[in-house]
């Protein structure tokens, strides 16, 4: 987008360049691309190196999925400051849309991505609209309620979700079915998902919508007086965030091929975990949520394996502690801490 801007300003002639002092001072999408490609390439290399190590490959695959989900969450939760724990709902909508279209109508999951995005965005907008009219913490409460309602509906609506026993789809390997024999193909798939969410996040942050979301988060009074339609801005951010989360659900459905409401809509294993990952990594930054996933997903696995068997709920005790301590002492997450260290270091130079 910014490349286009630069090209056009050039086309308009040099007379305007004299006034282009500000453009040189802001960070644009073009500035972000090198880092983005480097990050994606590095993870791609990791996938390649681990392609025969199934244990680590699966762990990485889940980290990439949750990384993509947390990056999506961050668009409304981080940039927009609207704390949602209901992203599991959009995740589930994506999974059920893809699963049902594939199972009953033979629709390729690749095509199901579009209705999954639209449906997630629509539900997000309908639920958010009444609460975004209000200030204060109503949004967080409404998202918690939404999760409960979604579980009740999922249990009740057996034709779509299979009820408590879950929705299963048959194994038919093939690119068009998004079902692969090789495990590394899934890692590549989720890397692609992560890349899409990261790129969307970058484009938003470096555009008017991103600045408007941050203005609304920092100070809605100043934002409104600056001509920003607060409601629209939040709704746009929420819809985009939910749509991206829905894509994650589509991919997840084809990866596990069986989903049940209790797991898919779990408040802690999905809804809160997405937010927690963003918090640990660094809310409101581009790569913080990814960093959080790379830390928390293996940690969670390890805690489950070693703590969970020794003490029932032991892993969740540790996660709860991390959540409390993180919100008290590491509000900017690992990314924020790293940035502080970097600043201190560069000041010394």
């Amino acid at each position: 987008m910014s490349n286009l801007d630069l090209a056009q300003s050039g086309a308009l002639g040099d007379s305007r360049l004299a006034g282009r002092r500000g453009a040189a001072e802001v960070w644009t999408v073009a500035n972000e691309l090198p880092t983005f490609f480097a990050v994606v390439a590095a993870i791609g290399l990791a996938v390649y190196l681990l392609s025969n190590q199934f244990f680590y490959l699966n762990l990485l695959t889940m980290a990439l999925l949750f990384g993509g989900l947390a990056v999506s969450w961050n668009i409304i939760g981080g940039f927009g400051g609207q704390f949602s724990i209901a992203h599991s709902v959009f995740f589930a909508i994506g999974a059920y849309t893809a699963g049902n279209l594939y199972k009953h109508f033979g629709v390729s999951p690749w095509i199901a991505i579009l209705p999954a995005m639209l449906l997630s965005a629509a539900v997000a907008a309908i639920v958010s609209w009444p609460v975004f009219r209000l200030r204060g913490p109503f949004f967080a409460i409404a998202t918690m309620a939404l999760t409960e309602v979604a579980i009740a509906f999922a249990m009740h609506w057996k034709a779509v979700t299979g009820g408590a026993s879950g929705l299963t789809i048959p194994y038919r390997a093939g690119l068009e079915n998004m079902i692969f024999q090789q495990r590394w193909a899934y890692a590549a798939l989720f890397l692609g998902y992560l890349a899409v969410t990261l790129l969307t996040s970058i484009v938003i942050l470096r555009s008017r919508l991103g600045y408007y979301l941050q203005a609304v988060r920092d100070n809605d009074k100043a934002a409104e007086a600056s001509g920003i339609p607060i409601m629209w801005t939040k709704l746009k951010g929420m819809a985009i965030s939910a749509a991206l989360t829905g894509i994650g659900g589509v991919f997840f459905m084809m990866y596990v091929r069986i989903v049940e409401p209790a797991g898919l809509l779990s408040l802690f294993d999905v809804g809160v975990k997405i937010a927690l990952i963003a918090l640990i990594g660094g809310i409101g930054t581009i790569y913080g949520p990814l960093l959080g996933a790379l830390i928390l997903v293996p940690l969670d696995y390890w805690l489950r394996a070693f703590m969970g068997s020794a003490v029932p709920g032991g892993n969740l005790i540790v996660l709860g502690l991390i959540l409390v301590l993180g919100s008290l002492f590491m509000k900017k997450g690992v990314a924020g801490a790293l940035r502080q260290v970097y600043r201190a270091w560069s000041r010394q130079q």
Partner: protein
Amino acid sequence: MDQFFNVVALGMLLGGTYALVSVGLNLIFGVIRIVNFSQGEFLMLGMYGAYLGYSTMGLDPYAGAFIVVPALTLLGMVVYWLVMRPLQNEPMMQVFASFGLLLLIQNVVLAITGGVGMSMNTPFSQVTLTIAGVQFSATRLIILLAALVAAGGLGLFLAKTNFGQAIRAVAQDRMAAQLMGINVERTFMWSFGIGTGLAGLAGVLLTPIYTLSPQIGGNFVMAAFAVVVLGGLGSVLGALVGGFIVGLTEAFAGYYIDPELKHAVIFIVFIAVLLIKPSGLFGQAGAEEVGLREQS
């Protein structure tokens, strides 16, 4: 027609339960505006506290309240001081932290008890009163009564005592209250403590009815938030009336629609209130608009 009245009675008794659970939350969320998702866990602790008194000392659960409620008030004050106070001006981090507390408390209890369901009885457990063909269980009636007493007591406390007035002053305008010499942090600490103490009271009174489990708090917390919003933030009367409305709604939805969908119905009530009358039934108009930022 008998069915109908039985459902009404069930709804009223359930409403009393929700009202009692909501009175404490009303103080924490409605008055001092902290979104405490771990409120249900304090209720759960109240239940286990009562059980502990019952199993170790043979204490009747109702008598156990005299130990459990002060203990939970104290715990709430400690939690406020250590966790909520440092996050005063960061509502989003408070939400995170209260979720962390929820996970922590729930799973510590799970680790200790091993997740075994427990239940206990009081002399009232089996008693039911039949009035005009409609049945009332004594334990539910006690809760209804307790809800009325707790709401009335809290209302009087907020309206008549100096300290209650200080709480309301701080809730309205933190800065002005500070200038008037009110110790804001201490006021908040006590409010939070009283709020968790009331949750503990609700927990104690619920022990004869529900089987204890570490996750039981989740059954009430969402309904309690709906009640506080429905009744109007900070309105004690609102919490009472809101409790009955939610209780009746749930009873009717459970009986006439589908028990599985009763949560959905509560959520629809919640959203409908925010759409039609965001200040709630008894809230001051505009109260819902008081952003947390403006208080800081």
